[in-house]
């Protein structure tokens, strides 16, 4: 745990007990019996511990209890069951989160408050994260760069792990399921007097699965992963705590490639490693001042290779990223109604990567501040800013303002306005890649002018491109700008009774300078040379609804819905200008499309919904749940030749995924679970050899059994 405020220690007992399974006493002052819900607190929204209901931002919490009830294995399994959180497979093979319509590359993923790195193609693969040691998952929606800087353009997901608990405790569990998925977890915790330690080991392996019978590769090749995590805490006294946490993740996966035209198959391996280390010193100076000193280092590396039939090396690629960040934070509490958070830090990133002509380095000092105050009793205002300086791209100033107004105890309004950005990454600036099979070239923006000149000098460009070279080079005159967004969220929360809760949130996020890959010159082999440019302006707009109802002691029902419009402003204009046409396949005649025919960005469903029914029988030590997630139709690419995703294209039809889980506890410490994920076996298989896309990559029905022993 690295992000704990100093008073985390003070709240620690209270905090843990409300989430731990071994819930015994309720040392909470609240006069309600529904302690669990009232006590939900989070740290991600403000960097101070806040009750969920008092945060003026659209936030979401997923607790360990919920994770355990549904027997999730990886973070990807978990997120899809919550409103507005959907994971999307990436062409690069990873699977990242989509938040309010924004892709994974615009969502910052934190582990105990420090960023996970290693986005070789932009997506941070959430299959890397086991849920086995997650205490709580915190999600902040909307631009959050005012606190977190780079990548927090669409929002933040913070994975919170458990701290050591007084005494010795632990659990061991194993889950076996279809596809020979084996997930084993061991959790140990020890704390005595000043010293505490946790240790966690997870092994997860799978035979993978295949949705495409027409080729010789699998959708997911067999793999095995290990995760080791440990956290040590030492309390010098009541005011000072030192925390060290370390994580090691490793994934070994078969790597299979097929030359589509010749059918030749290449085999190899891909190996992935992720290391994270955090040292955190918390100190309370006095009632008003608390300070934190944090040092974080992370390394993410991959090695991939493919060999041909004979065993000769065909391709090999390496990726090796270091991320180092010292940060200092202070919380200054004037009184109950006025609090300041101040922070300053320095980020250093390096990357060694195949197809990079240099080993680039990013250096970025930054500073942030936040004022959290209650001008009157019913109003809470948070105003914050962050300033990031950078050695390669333009400095960024990210402000944020959020307001909550509690009209009554049962009804409150929230509104927030924020700025978010994502800096051009190493790949977009420094990649120098030529595809050996097809022959196209992709150049990072900063290396492109020199490389284009080289290609021209060596006769690799067409006569046309050479003649046009001065114009092409002039496209690179200005620096590539960070992608940025301005987002607004307006919502309301309504709690008519202790057992009913409903919320609504409207969001709009306008993103500018979206970086797109576009062809800039033609190689003499007819293939293109691509580079990265700030091009598109897009917007994401929608509505999110959530509600839950604890019907009685046994049943809880919850449901959620997200409506989303995601459009490119230029494309929308093309429709309005009447430049877009369709073709009637039976007559061969073209017809003009109007603006209502524009569906919007691919890979996003307009309608997403979920519903869950939880049953709990305390006497019988039994609980069960039935969940469904529904996705409306989504476009995946232009299929009718006009270059736009419109209503006349092919769509991935809507689908529903049902899950069921049964959990029974024996002799207090033994828990046995049976369940089926994807009960009705929905898949989106490849239907013909020409159909290359399996958009969702959702595996078929999975039966599982799980056993867990606490000690």
């Amino acid at each position, binding site marked *: 745990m690295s992000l704990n405020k100093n008073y985390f220690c003070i709240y620690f007992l209270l905090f843990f007990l409300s989430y731990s399974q071994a819930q015994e006493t309720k040392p909470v002052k609240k006069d309600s019996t529904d302690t669990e819900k009232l006590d939900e607190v989070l740290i991600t929204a403000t960097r101070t511990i806040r009750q969920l209901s008092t945060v003026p931002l659209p936030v979401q919490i997923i607790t360990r209890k919920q994770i355990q009830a549904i027997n999730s294995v990886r973070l990807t399994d978990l997120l899809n069951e919550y409103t507005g959180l959907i994971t999307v497979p990436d062409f690069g093979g990873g699977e990242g989160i989509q938040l309010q319509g924004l892709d994974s590359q615009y969502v910052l993923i934190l582990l105990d408050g420090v960023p996970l790195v290693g986005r070789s193609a932009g997506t941070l693969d959430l299959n890397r994260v086991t849920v086995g040691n997650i205490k709580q998952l915190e999600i902040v929606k909307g631009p959050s760069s005012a606190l977190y800087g780079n990548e927090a353009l669409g929002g933040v997901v913070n994975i919170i792990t458990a701290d050591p608990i007084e005494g010795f405790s632990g659990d061991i569990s194993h889950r076996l399921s279809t596809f020979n998925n084996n997930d084993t977890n061991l959790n140990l915790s020890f704390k005595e007097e000043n010293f505490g330690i946790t240790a966690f080991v997870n092994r997860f392996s799978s035979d993978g699965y295949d949705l495409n019978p027409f080729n010789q590769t699998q959708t997911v090749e067999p793999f095995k992963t290990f995760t080791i995590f440990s956290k040590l805490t030492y309390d010098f006294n009541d005011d000072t705590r030192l925390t060290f946490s370390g994580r090691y993740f490793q994934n070994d996966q078969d790597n299979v490639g097929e030359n589509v035209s010749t059918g030749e198959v290449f085999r190899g391996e891909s190996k992935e490693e992720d290391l994270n280390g955090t040292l955190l010193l918390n100190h309370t100076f006095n009632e008003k001042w608390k300070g934190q000193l944090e040092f974080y280092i992370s390394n993410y590396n991959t090695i991939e290779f493919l060999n041909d039939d004979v065993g000769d090396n065909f391709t090999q690629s390496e990726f090796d990223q270091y991320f180092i960040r010292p940060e200092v934070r202070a919380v200054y509490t004037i009184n109950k109604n006025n609090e300041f958070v101040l922070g300053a830090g320095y980020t250093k990133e390096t990357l060694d990567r195949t197809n990079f002509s240099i080993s680039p380095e990013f250096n970025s000092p930054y500073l942030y501040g936040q004022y959290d105050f209650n001008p009157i009793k019913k109003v809470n205002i948070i105003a914050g800013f962050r300033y990031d300086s950078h050695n390669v791209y333009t400095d960024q100033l990210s402000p944020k303002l959020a307001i909550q107004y509690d009209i009554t105890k049962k009804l409150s309004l929230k509104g927030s306005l924020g700025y978010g950005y994502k800096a051009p990454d190493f790949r977009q600036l420094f990649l120098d890649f030529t595809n050996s099979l097809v*022959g196209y070239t992709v150049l990072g923006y900063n290396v492109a002018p020199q490389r284009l000149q080289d290609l021209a000098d060596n006769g690799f460009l067409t006569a046309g491109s050479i003649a046009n070279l001065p114009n092409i080079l002039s496209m690179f005159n200005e620096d590539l700008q960070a992608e940025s967004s301005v987002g607004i969220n307006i919502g309301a929360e309504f709690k008519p009774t202790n057992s009913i809760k409903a919320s609504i949130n409207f969001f709009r996020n306008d993103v500018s300078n979206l970086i797109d890959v576009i062809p800039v010159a033609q190689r003499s082999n007819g293939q293109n040379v691509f580079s990265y440019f700030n091009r598109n302006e897009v917007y994401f707009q929608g509505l999110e609804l959530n509600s839950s109802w604890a019907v009685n002691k046994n049943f809880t029902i919850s449901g959620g819905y997200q409506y989303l419009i995601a459009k490119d402003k230029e494309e929308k204009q093309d429709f309005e200008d009447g430049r877009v046409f369709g073709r009637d396949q039976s007559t061969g005649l073209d017809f003009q499309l109007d603006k209502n025919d524009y569906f919007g960005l691919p890979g996003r469903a307009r309608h997403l919904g979920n519903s869950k029914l939880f049953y709990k029988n305390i006497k019988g030590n039994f609980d069960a749940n039935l969940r469904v997630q529904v996705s409306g139709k989504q476009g995946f690419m232009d299929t009718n*030749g*006009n270059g736009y995703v419109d209503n006349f294209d092919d769509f991935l039809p809507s689908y529903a995924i049902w899950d069921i889980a049964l959990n029974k506890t024996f002799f207090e410490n033994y828990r046995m679970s049976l369940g089926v994920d994807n009960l009705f076996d929905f898949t989106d298989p490849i239907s013909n050899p*020409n159909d290359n896309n399996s958009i969702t990559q959702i595996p078929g029905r999975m039966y599982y059994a799980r056993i867990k022993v606490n000690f």
Partner: protein
Amino acid sequence: MRKFKFLSLFALLTILITSCSSDDDGQTLVPIESEQITNLFADITGGGMGQPDEGPFTKFDFESGSITTSDTDWDIAFRSTAIIVNGGTTQGTVGEPERNGNAAAYVAEDTFANVTEVDESLFRQDSPTELAIIRASGMGWYTYTGPPPFGTNLILPTPGRVLVFRTRDGKYAKVSIDSYYRDNPPEDQLDALVNEPRYYTFDYVYQPNEGVTTFE
């Protein structure tokens, strides 16, 4: 209704009178020609993989409505996805014909039927930097669906893109490309591994009358 009939009659009379007066001048208007060409093969015999495209273009003459091997009497020519006009300057690739006419082209954004008039100001000719019909996905006549394994690797005619040509001798034609694959298969059944590319099927309307800028 009655009024409409009357107007139609009036229009018919006007046309007859105009036609008569043309006759009087000795300049009979030849009827415009609407044709479909199927499976025009636009082979490419060399290049690729580091080399420029090579090989002869398949030349087409609107006046005769057929393929030609003439070095001079051609209007437009095809090689792979490149469509060139007999006007402007050669790009100097192997097999590329010299331009010796005054042909030109532009791409209109409309349905084929709606392109009724030529806009002379939009015409461009081929140049070493760029062809009059730009050869790039979404910029000229076609949309490329992307390379495998994620794209379907097809060349699809962009709907609503009409190629308007001035012929080598100053007449006009409009062209709508129907397909780039042999026998013009339905688009949703196209398979890059099965269907043979570089076989153009296209509709055209040719206005054979000198100086007439309409297609009606």
